[in-house]
């Protein structure tokens, strides 16, 4: 946006005697304009949405993240609701995960948040702690929100400071996804649930030697892998309002993976960096840059869409009791919504209506309603979906208790882990230095 024409406008070229003042002033004026441009960027939008009162037709705004497949399923389910309640229509907005929470925060700041929105455990406490979400407890008590068929731990994973801030839209758990085709072609064994971390790394090294494809993505920057590992050591990510681990724990974690990198079991740091993206299409197991990726079990079908190879999924290494039934994401209602009751009823519908649940399948994780989960599992046809259901059902017997929902500041803790781990990966810090840096940064993030 340069005012590219400006200097010439002041004075004609060539022979005429230039009008000097004009020109000097022009240059200065232009510079002043240029200085004003950044200020214009500071603008924030405000808006107020006026919606009808009770009774009459209701237009409910719904906002979620996900891909096209999820959009299709969700739109179908919402259309079904409209069919049953012709008064209620929806204003649907969806986008990719990246940037979703920026947008949600901006909408909230502008006084224009969606009535009903999808949220995950990375942000639930941030929103609930600031009373942005409606406490759904009273609806649960009055029976308008039926959660009786939910596993208890899954329901409790939506409680922040004693308030039901979100209702699990599905259940998932950590899953180690591997490239079955590659392993079979090379006559290599598949990883199994219950392998120790050392065994996993040794296996990955073996894969790397045989196939020239690094055996495993280095998950040292991945909070969910660190979390499982910590729980297996009897620690946790958070303990009340404090960190549930020390710098020594993180040092051990970083050293474990430094060892793996030194043995050639993982890709090079720049490739690891690529795989640290939250983008499904960049996961190394589908880009062919490593034989395994560290993901959530319900992401299996999405991963499968991005590769021709067969994929398999098992639990993360170590004792599977380190894992838990996690709410893959929640539905939450904005506290200031004008249509709270309707929004809650929609949540109830999406979780408990047999038709709606059948439509939604396992896209957001296994259905939270156990009766309907059984039905969906029986009728699933997509092989990747079947497999993720299978693995998660098997794991359900072995799960440990759910941890507390991550606290305020968690999103920063996540990004600080990436920074510290990459510092160690690129060799810019020793594991101990990186761990120290991480713990210091965490403490100020959650303070």
């Amino acid at each position, binding site marked *: 946006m340069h005012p590219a024409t400006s200097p*010439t406008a002041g004075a004609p070229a060539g022979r005429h005697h230039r009008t000097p003042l004009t020109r000097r002033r022009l240059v200065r004026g232009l510079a002043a304009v240029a200085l004003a441009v950044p200020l214009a960027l500071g603008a924030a939008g405000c808006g107020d949405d006026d919606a009808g009162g009770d009774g009459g037709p209701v237009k409910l705004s719904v906002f979620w993240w996900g891909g096209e497949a999820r959009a299709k399923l969700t739109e179908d389910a919402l259309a079904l609701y409209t069919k049953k309640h012709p008064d209620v229509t929806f204003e649907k907005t969806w986008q990719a995960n990246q940037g979703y929470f920026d947008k949600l925060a901006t909408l909230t700041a502008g006084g224009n948040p969606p009535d009903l929105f999808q949220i995950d455990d990375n942000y639930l406490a941030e929103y609930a702690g600031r009373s942005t979400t409606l406490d759904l407890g009273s609806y649960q008590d009055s029976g308008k929100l039926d959660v009786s068929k939910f596993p208890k731990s899954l329901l409790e994973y939506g409680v922040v400071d004693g308030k039901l801030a979100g209702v699990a839209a599905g259940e998932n758990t950590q899953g180690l996804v591997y490239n079955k085709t590659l392993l079979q072609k090379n006559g290599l064994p598949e990883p199994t649930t219950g392998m120790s971390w050392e065994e996993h790394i040794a296996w990955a090294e073996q894969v790397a030697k045989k196939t020239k494809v690094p055996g495993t993505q280095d998950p040292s920057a991945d909070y969910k892998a660190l979390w499982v590992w910590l729980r297996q050591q009897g620690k946790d990510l958070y303990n009340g309002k404090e960190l549930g681990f020390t710098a020594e724990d993180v040092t051990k974690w970083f050293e474990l993976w430094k060892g793996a990198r030194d043995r050639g079991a993982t890709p090079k740091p720049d490739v690891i*960096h690529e795989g640290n993206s939250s983008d499904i299409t960049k996961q190394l197991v589908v880009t062919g840059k490593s034989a395994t990726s560290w993901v959530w079990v319900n992401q299996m079908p999405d991963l499968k869409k991005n590769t021709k190879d067969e994929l398999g999924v098992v639990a993360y290494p170590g004792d599977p009791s380190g894992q838990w039934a996690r709410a893959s994401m929640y539905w939450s209602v904005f506290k200031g919504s004008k249509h709270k009751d309707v929004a809650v009823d929609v949540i109830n519908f999406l979780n408990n209506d047999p038709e709606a649940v059948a439509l939604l399948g396992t896209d957001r994780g296994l259905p939270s309603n156990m009766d309907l989960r059984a039905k969906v599992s029986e009728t699933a046809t997509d092989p990747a979906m079947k497999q993720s259901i299978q693995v998660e059902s098997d794991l359900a017997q072995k799960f440990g208790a759910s941890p507390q929902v991550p606290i305020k500041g968690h999103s920063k803790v996540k*990004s600080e882990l990436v920074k510290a781990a990459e510092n160690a990966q690129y060799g810019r810090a020793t594991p101990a230095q990186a761990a120290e840096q991480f713990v210091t940064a965490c403490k100020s993030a959650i303070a």
Partner: protein
Amino acid sequence: MAVTTAPGRTPRTGPAGPRPTRRRAGRARLGEGLAGYVFLSPWLIGLMGVTAIPMLLSLWLSFTDYDILTPLSEVRWVGLANYERMFTADPSYWHAVRVTLTFALIAVPLKLAAALGVALLLNRAWRGVGLFRSLFYLPSLLGGSVALAIVWVNMFNRDGAFNSFLALFGVEGLPWVSDPDWALETLMVLAIWQFGAPMVIFLAGLKQVPTELYEAAAVDGAGAWRRFRAVTLPMLSPVIFFNLVLETINGFQGFTAAFVLSNGTGGPVDSTLMYTLKLYISGFTDLEMGYASAMAWVFLVAIGVVTAVFFSTGRFWVHYSDGDDS
């Protein structure tokens, strides 16, 4: 582009200038003044609503703990705490300052040099020179576009086009964009490549240098380099000054490419954590909008200071060819 001027502009006064008729001049002037404000009002309303008011709001917010989610009516006044934290307790803030300075100090001079060099080449009456001017201008039209940044990232990936090109010569490339030692440099190259806008301004400036000066210099026996040093540079100095100020400000504000390259994180390992990106992350990801506002104000003051320094040194090297007949 519209670099051509209307030579010999007739001395016409501005829109608010007096009309030939003198009758009831006072009323007419008042009417015209009013009309002026009416015509100005869309811009004025925009300026107040979109710029001035949010700006003042952000000044206030910079002294509060505003976190976006809490309504404005409930924010707490924290005095200078945000500023204190920025200067004393946030190492990543100073890191962002360092990254931004490095970027601006290297990319801006190189970009201007490239712009001036190409402008000199294109300031000739070749056939088809117009086409080349447009072609060189093109990259800056695409300017801050996200699409361009995405293409750039893909080009400089480990298996991107640039490394394939290097491979033709048997050189093994690096993973430029995901290597913390090279990611910022990749962004600099992108910025330098977009030299079209200052180039066009340089071209316009070059056209204004009176040809008789060159002729006189040539008669005096000055060679090409001497003519460049003694005629072109001084005559061009106001335009150089303008481009320098503008591009420095632009350079400080680099955001889009860094955001795209790092998925909004400033990675790998904070190597592309430009000031504005740090500001964005603080405000929207960490939900510390009060802190981000404080950062924005320090940024504004810093840019103001840098610009003031340029203006005060300008008198030593910017030559306006006014006053005494030079």
